[in-house]
């Protein structure tokens, strides 16, 4: 099977004064059709930047993005809107409040992409489709006339999901879709997402910093640190035997209820700056409990450690 999304050596740098901020640095990844891939990493490591490039609202500095065998990375974001692929990559945003136009009703929010990307519609046809979508995400039809500020967080999240599903995408990118929600609402949304994937066969790229959530929803996980992928692999494998010290620290930091809880990895020191980072030094160096000499002279490459389990570390753990 060919990957639905295939990203090679993608980079995005932002100018900061005279220097460059390497938000995303030579990232390669792929998503297979029908697969759910998790993307984790700490705040500011470039998850959103990556995702915004993949959804083609942000232009990459370098690298290629192939979607369904077509190279879409070079199409300027403004023009991509007019290509047929626009409908096929959709996204659910982190903050359900901020991502809904406060002056659009729930109906308008869901109908907007339909009007632009599908159609033509008759008024009745559009209404039927919107109600259909609302039903799919479990949003009561009577709420469609409301404005975002009149909806609860969970309801807003559903509007966002319905909007993204409207154009029948093949790849759905979810940028921390539940981090602004309460646990009880989060549970509802997670179940909904999982259910939808099973029913519609859509591929997910699920961004989060909550490993527990990723583990619940995804088959494969990619761990990012400061613009780089440090580890990737099947969820089970990564969670059971994290090979990168950062992943390990991440996992061990999850508050456990005293049930399991292996030895905790303490991270000390400050993260390196993403501005003009040295290409020779491992990004994790300085915080890494294992830091070796090689880490300062050579950037570790991703290496295959087992079935699809790859890690970028000179001294992988076991």
């Amino acid at each position, binding site marked *: 099977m060919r990957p639905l999304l295939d990203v090679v050596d993608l980079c995005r740098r932002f100018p900061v004064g005279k220097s460059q901020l390497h938000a995303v640095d030579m990232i390669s990844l792929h998503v297979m059709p029908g697969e759910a891939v998790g993307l984790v990493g700490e705040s500011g490591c470039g998850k959103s930047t990556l995702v915004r490039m993949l959804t083609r609202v942000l232009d990459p500095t370098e690298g290629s993005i192939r979607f369904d065998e077509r190279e879409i990375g070079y199409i300027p974001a403004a023009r991509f809107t007019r290509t047929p692929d626009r409908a096929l990559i959709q996204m659910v945003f982190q903050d359900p409040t901020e*991502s809904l136009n406060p002056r659009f009703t729930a109906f308008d929010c869901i109908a907007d992409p339909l009007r632009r990307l599908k159609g033509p519609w008759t008024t009745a046809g559009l209404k039927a489709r919107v109600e259909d979508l609302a039903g799919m995400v479990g949003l009561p039809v009577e709420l469609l006339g409301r404005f975002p500020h009149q909806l609860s967080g969970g309801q807003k999240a559903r509007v*966002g999901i319905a909007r993204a599903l409207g*154009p029948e995408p093949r790849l759905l990118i979810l940028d921390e879709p539940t981090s602004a929600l309460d646990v009880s609402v989060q549970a509802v949304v997670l179940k909904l997402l999982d259910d939808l994937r099973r029913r519609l066969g859509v591929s997910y790229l699920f961004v989060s910093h909550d490993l527990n959530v990723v583990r619940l929803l995804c088959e494969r996980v990619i761990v990012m640190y400061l613009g780089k992928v440090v580890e990737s692999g099947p969820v089970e494998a990564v969670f059971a035997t994290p090979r990168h010290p950062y992943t390990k620290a991440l996992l061990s930091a999850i508050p456990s209820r005293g049930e399991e809880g292996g030895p905790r990895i303490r991270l000390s020191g400050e993260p390196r700056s993403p501005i003009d980072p040295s290409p020779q030094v491992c990004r994790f160096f300085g915080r890494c409990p294992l830091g070796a000499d090689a880490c300062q002279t050579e950037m570790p490459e991703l290496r295959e450690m087992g079935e699809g389990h790859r890690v970028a570390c000179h001294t992988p753990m076991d």
Partner: protein
Amino acid sequence: MRYVLAENPVTAGAFVGFALLIALALFGPMIAPFDPLASDTDIALQPPSLAHWFGTDHLGRDILSRVIVAARLDMQIALAAVALSFVFGSLLGVLAGWYGGGIDRAIGRVVDTIMAFPLFVLAMGIVAALGNTVGNIIYATAIINLPFYARMARAETNARRDAGFVEAARLSGNSDARILAAQVFPNILPPMMVQVSLNLGYAILNAAGLSFIGLGVRPPTPEWGIMVAEGATYIVSGEWWIALFPGLVLMAAVFCFNLLGDGLRDIIDPRRRT
């Protein structure tokens, strides 16, 4: 909205005042008790009386009638000037805020240049150079107000350029122009409306100031600023009513616009919406 009005009687008052001003502007000539232009030197400079509630001016014209009739012109000047600066200012601002880069710098330059003039003096210069017609007063007022809209629209647009809903709109297949028109603009409108109502007041004041230094509309057209300016010379000699009444009405109008701005702010503040 009804809720805010009920909560805040001052704002409600401002709305009533605004409605009154509009009514005056529309029907002023019909309800004015006297011909505002008819002079009668026999009754010149009479203090307020039952016949002439606001007294008469130096040519014996009825001040009340002049004040009423002037409402139309003053409102015209204010509305037209503000409309012009709003349209062009927000257009420039939105473009600058949206595209950033060179466009932003170019527009910023223009706006900075306007701002670098002492604004009232710029208005004076424009009216003096082009002639003191109503049209030119409106243009001058519009030009000096333009930077405020441009800056505000720029800031508001800039703040929303990367907002989630804008990105969502892009994902939904909206073109830039469409996003600007349908998504961004309606959202920056409310704060701009507050500015509009404040500016309506400033526009009237500006026109009045121009009148005061002799660059206002042509006599004998009644206009509040001119009436105050004319009346100013009579204050010391004790004929206070000539300047006072138009001054009060002018003040009331500006006051009303300003309070309206406050009220609008309350109404459009999403936290106050139910």
